């Protein structure tokens, strides 16, 4: 029996899913911007407390992981499975590095008594409570996406080794790459929103 394959169709399906992700995060962006407008002073104070160096480092890490992801697909197109695997493994490593940084950053915040519903935070003004609530919710949801991406790309590593992803059939890798780049794009907007606009 002949197997039915439609790569363009499957890519369109992926893009529609990614569009729904944009709308999901877009809603949160609107919420954040609306509250920033309402509590400008509090948001300014709270944003000053975020670690801009760690935020910038994580931006560089994610941008680099997008490069290795793109290079992994370029390699499989050239039928070079070993380098495709290498770039993919590097992408997974960079994703884990991002999450490690996020862990350090969140731990420092929790160590200072800033976490949702903490007595310390509840003693502050309502704008600051909102800022940190949105900070945890949005970077948390994004971090969850990175975690899912790391899992997905690990499975793709396995598929590349097994030869299920190959020069003539790499749509799974292509679509996983699209997902990974979208997670990167979301961070491109989260970074200025929380770390830079003070």
């Amino acid at each position: 029996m002949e197997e039915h394959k439609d790569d363009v169709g499957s890519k369109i399906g992926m893009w529609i899913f990614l569009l729904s992700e944009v709308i999901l995060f877009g809603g949160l962006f609107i919420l954040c911007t609306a509250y920033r407008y309402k509590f400008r002073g509090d948001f300014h104070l709270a944003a000053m407390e975020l670690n801009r160096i760690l935020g910038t480092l994580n931006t560089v890490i994610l941008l680099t992981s997008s490069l290795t992801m793109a290079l992994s697909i370029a390699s499989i197109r050239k039928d070079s499975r070993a380098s495709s695997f290498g770039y993919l493994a590097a992408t997974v490593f960079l994703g884990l590095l991002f999450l490690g940084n996020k862990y350090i950053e969140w731990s420092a915040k929790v160590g200072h008594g800033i976490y949702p519903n903490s007595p310390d935070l509840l003693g502050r003004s309502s704008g600051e409570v909102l800022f940190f609530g949105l900070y945890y919710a949005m970077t948390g949801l994004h971090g969850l996406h990175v975690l899912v991406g790391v899992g997905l790309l690990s499975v793709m590593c396995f598929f590349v080794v097994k030869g299920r992803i190959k020069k003539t059939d790499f749509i799974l890798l292509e679509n996983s790459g699209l997902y990974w780049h979208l997670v990167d794009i979301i961070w491109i907007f989260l970074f200025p929103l929380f770390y830079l606009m003070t």
Partner: protein
Amino acid sequence: MEQSNRIQSATRRTYVIVWVGLLMLTGVTVSVAGMDLGQLGVLVALTIAGVKSCLVFLYFMHLRYERGFFFKLIIPVTVLLLVLFIGMVFTDIAFR
């Protein structure tokens, strides 16, 4: 299966150039944030983020090389949708 191979793709060199561009834009947006530009700073930060995301969409996500109606429309439709949402929310907040 030939379908996906027929689609053109960027070269490795292009990817590296795009990556360097993204890092440079990150440097610019961080240094601009160090200056006190007030409301203009928000505009600059969002513009740079927009340019960066376009680079990722067009090159890393290959939209520049895709053919077909759907792929040409996906970004404009997404942007339009978000502008509509944001515009409606902000007219509500501003004229309340």
